[in-house]
């Protein structure tokens, strides 16, 4: 067992323990870790945007290639910050929002139905084997659960809806099981780090 002497590993280990201390109860160590994470994520994003996006674009397109329309749209984007200025000019912030919403809506409407339609088409399979028949019947019952207009008046829809509820519960149970798997994965990674990288205990 060789405990790490690397300060970076120690900081990571102490932060991990501070985060998990929340499971016992809320405490100052947890708060410190939480605030540090939020601040780091924000500052990282700003710095990355600046060096990875803004500066290369200005250098390549505006300075080297003289494509000055980038400045026009850059200025339009800056109008977002008018929200923080006195009331008289705050309305200017609506222009970049208008452009973004207008473009965004058009783009979404143009392509969005495609993906769900493909899944819808896939649901209507030829009933060639038992699996396909079961799939089709359960799909119908799941739909029946959402027939609120007919409801209990029709025995078919009523019984089908009850079966459909069970189908939905199975689907949600699957999602729950997978969520547990994800959460355990996170803990296992931190556990491996604490045992092997920090405390130097050989694992596996």
């Amino acid at each position, binding site marked *: 067992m060789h405990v790490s002497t690397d300060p970076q590993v120690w900081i990571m280990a102490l932060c991990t323990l501070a985060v998990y201390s929340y*499971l*016992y109860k809320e405490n100052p160590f947890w708060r410190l870790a939480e605030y540090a994470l939020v601040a780091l*994520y924000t500052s*990282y*994003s700003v710095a*990355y*945007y600046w*060096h*990875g*996006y803004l500066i*290369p*674009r200005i250098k*390549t*397109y505006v300075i080297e290639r003289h494509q000055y329309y980038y400045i026009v749209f850059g200025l339009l984007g800056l109008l977002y910050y008018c929200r923080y200025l006195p009331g008289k000019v705050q309305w200017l912030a609506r222009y970049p929002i208008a452009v973004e919403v207008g*473009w965004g809506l058009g*783009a979404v409407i143009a*392509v*969005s139905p*495609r*993906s769900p339609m*493909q*899944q819808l*088409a*896939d649901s209507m399979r030829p009933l060639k084997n038992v699996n396909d028949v079961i799939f089709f019947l359960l799909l119908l019952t799941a739909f029946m659960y959402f027939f609120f207009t007919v409801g209990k008046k029709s025995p078919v829809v009523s019984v089908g809806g009850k079966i459909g509820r069970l189908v939905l519960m199975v*689907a949600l149970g*699957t*999602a729950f*099981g*997978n*969520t*547990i*798997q*994800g959460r*355990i*994965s*996170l*803990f*296992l*990674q*931190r*556990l*491996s780090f604490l*045992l092997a990288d920090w405390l130097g*205990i050989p*694992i*596996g």
Partner: protein
Amino acid sequence: MEKLENIDPRWVYLVMAILLTIPILKPVGLALGMDEGTKAVYNWVESLKPGDIVFGDVAYAGGSDAELSPQLSAWFYHCMKKGAKVVMVAQWNTGASLGYKVCQAAAEKAKKDGYSAEYGTDWVYVGWKAGGTTTWRQMQVDFWNACAETDHLGNKFSDLPLMQRVKQWTPDMPVMIFSAGSPGVPTYTNYFVGWPLYVGNVAVQAAEIVPLVRSGQVKGNLLGMTGAAQYEVLLWGGGPTVKKMDAQSLGHLWIIVLIVLGNIGYISKLRKKG
């Protein structure tokens, strides 16, 4: 019996921690199944010829490191082993540097094992580019322009030999998306119709991705840590993630026990009420 419904969560966490620690220190070696989705991803990379260009997308951040980084590492190594050329993009800015480190470590490992994994020639990490789906759509038309002609490290595309072959992102360049949420897979199912899509996703997303696989929109998928472990088995016969799967199984067993206990407590309470 009714107390079973209200167990102090701290006891639950403590037992869980103990149950997970034991198999980590001493794995039992429980059997690991093999998903069709994992096989599909593996077979696709196996079918690649030296020089083929593939894309990878880091659409996750630190919160999904445990599940997706082992997937990325194994997949990237496999691509280097097959001589494929990999271009990495990142839809999540918060995960871009993390993804780069994972690729760098996998490339070093591939080099040690005798495979060519030179930066600029065998792989390039373009990283995150702002603009969301607009930028990704533009990558199909003019990849260089969409990316401001620079990679994650600030290198000019003109100085990177591999990028001379990637002026556009065409449908003969499949993509493996490592996705933890949004933006993620929908960027490709909506805007990259015709491109072969493969997904490495967090376990929570399974219910969203499986229908896409069944409908043929996604060709194959790795599911959480299990997917990474299965890929390691196919690639190396075992690996660091495989060793953690015993703990996964015990953790799930504990959750099942808790669900049963909670239901016993609930039913007891109902009976008492009459």
